[in-house]
């Protein structure tokens, strides 16, 4: 009997759920299915998509990075201060900001791969460290009114969409190709699927992990640029909370909490499911706090679903052959 590719099936499930949500909300509010509202949903979520793509590297590899929120906070205030306070040219400020984000990711990678602690705890700890540094640097000030060149990224439109939408699209396509066509993407899936077997296959898993967290930091920094350019203001409280949204979106989008699975189209659909829910509830007059409740429940539900799928797969395996005899190639 041919076995259906689970991750492929998952991909379409996510799209289907998104479509149903959209139909539902189009009944609750006449404004929901307007071009203006849908455009808003897309443009408001580009930076979530970019950060989620970054996080997907780490999560598919079997890790997690809870510090992306405060990475954004730190990178945001540093970049803004360089532009506004120190009058550094925009290109240089952005380059330094991206470099800083990359270094933060590298730090996470070094910590997770050297000290054998759970990445969940390790990045929670670095998250607090980044928070402290962010407030120490910004002294809790707000920095606004950036140079026009910097605002160009999110204000200038092409085919009716701001540039950052295309930026997100290009990154998504690029990473999609990396995941499905390259040796790196292939080894990433292997690492997330079975770390010990990967090691015995001759994959340098320490190096892989460092690269994954570094990439996450780099993408998070790109997302930060979009976020502060769009808002035209920032302070140390800009960014935190993002980690929760992108984590939920990633799991809803079929990236297994245990690693080894995931694809970009479903991930983006996951981001939009959360976005559509938020937007639809807003239009229906539910307010912000109810959205927190719903988001939390969604995360719980998605993790439970992920776990359920894993269990049924393992059960099937047990029936067809003793699990003890799992084999591993050298």
């Amino acid at each position, binding site marked *: 009997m*041919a*076995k259906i*590719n*689970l991750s492929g099936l998952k991909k379409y499930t996510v799209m289907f759920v998104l479509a149903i949500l959209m139909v539902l909300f189009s009944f609750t509010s006449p404004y929901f299915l307007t071009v203006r509202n849908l455009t808003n949903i897309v443009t408001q979520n580009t930076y979530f998509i970019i950060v989620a793509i970054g996080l997907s590297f780490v999560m598919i590899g079997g890790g997690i990075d809870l510090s992306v929120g405060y990475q954004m906070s730190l990178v945001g205030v540093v970049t803004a201060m360089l532009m506004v306070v120190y009058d550094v040219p925009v290109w240089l400020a952005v380059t330094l900001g991206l470099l800083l984000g990359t270094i933060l990711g590298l730090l996470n990678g070094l910590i997770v791969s050297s000290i054998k602690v759970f990445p969940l705890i390790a990045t929670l700890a670095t998250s607090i460290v980044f928070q402290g540094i962010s407030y120490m640097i910004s002294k809790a000030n707000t920095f606004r009114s950036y140079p026009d060149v910097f605002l160009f990224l999110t204000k200038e439109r092409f085919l009716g969409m701001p540039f950052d939408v295309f930026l997100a699209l290009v990154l998504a396509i690029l990473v999609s190709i990396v995941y499905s*066509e*390259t*040796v*790196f993407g*292939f*080894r990433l*899936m*292997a690492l*997330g*699927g*079975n770390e*010990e*077997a*990967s*090691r*015995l*296959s*001759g*994959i340098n898993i320490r190096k892989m992990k460092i690269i994954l967290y570094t990439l996450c930091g780099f993408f998070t920094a790109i997302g930060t640029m979009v976020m502060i350019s769009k808002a035209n203001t920032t302070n140390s409280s800009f960014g935190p909370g993002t980690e929760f949204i992108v984590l939920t979106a990633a799991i809803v989008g079929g990236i297994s909490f245990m690693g*080894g*699975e995931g694809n970009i189209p479903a991930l983006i659909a996951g981001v939009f499911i959360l976005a559509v829910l938020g937007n639809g509830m807003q239009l229906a007059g539910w307010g912000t706090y109810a959205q927190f409740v719903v988001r939390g429940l969604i995360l719980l539900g998605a993790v439970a679903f992920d776990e359920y799928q894993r269990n049924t*797969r393992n059960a*099937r*395996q047990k029936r*067809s*052959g*003793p699990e*003890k*005899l*799992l*084999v*591993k*190639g*050298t």
Partner: protein
Amino acid sequence: MNTEYAVEMKEICKRFGGVHALKDVNLELRRGEIMGIVGDNGAGKSTLMKILSGAYQADEGEIYIYGEKAVIHNPQDSFNLGISMIYQDLALFNNLDVTKNIFVGRELVRGPFGIFLNKKSMYQKTVNLIRELRVDIKSPKLNVASMSGGQRQMVACARAIAFQSKILIMDEPTAALGVTEANKLLGLIRNLKDMGLSILLITQRIPDVLAIADRVFVLKGGQRQDILEVSRVTLDDVVTMIVKGKAGNGNQIPDVEYRSFG
């Protein structure tokens, strides 16, 4: 230098903390033979083989492959010497299909700097391998999570063959298989020998060893007891040596009379 042997391990010692897992173990594997590695639980069978496969490093001792001194620091070194180990525990990649499982870590590549996967070649090579080994796997696109224990062993064998390994180490391949599947697998191992591989077979099932091995290497308490010619020994001889050790080497003889199984 002796090139009659595919593998020579000399005076291998390994300690884990205070436990002396291997004491001055010598092993010689001839070219193209199947050698059974037997011993009780904790005798050091897997440890010895993991040293050869690069999963562990020996504290002392030397390894020669085809007469040449070899330095094995990690699994990649071992692989480069033509050695593959198929492990008993842990797993293949359950999230990947047969083709991908075979090629993890040794992908066929194309494009600039070899960054892209050559999926077509990998698929074709897997189809050929399945045919060549005459194994019971319907499609290379099958996820290994859905396979039986025997099929999974065969995927692991295919992985070793795909990369022209000349020395194959198998850790309890038949341990959890049913009779039919175990026999199929033993048949496959014999095929591999005919293809010119030298095979080290760790097992608790002595009858398996007697059925397909040329010689059998007995370990007890981290020490080599003897290498026996399978054609000249009986099941009881082997079992006695596993339990009591080589006569006269000073090992304590257990008080309980041991009855052989099988």
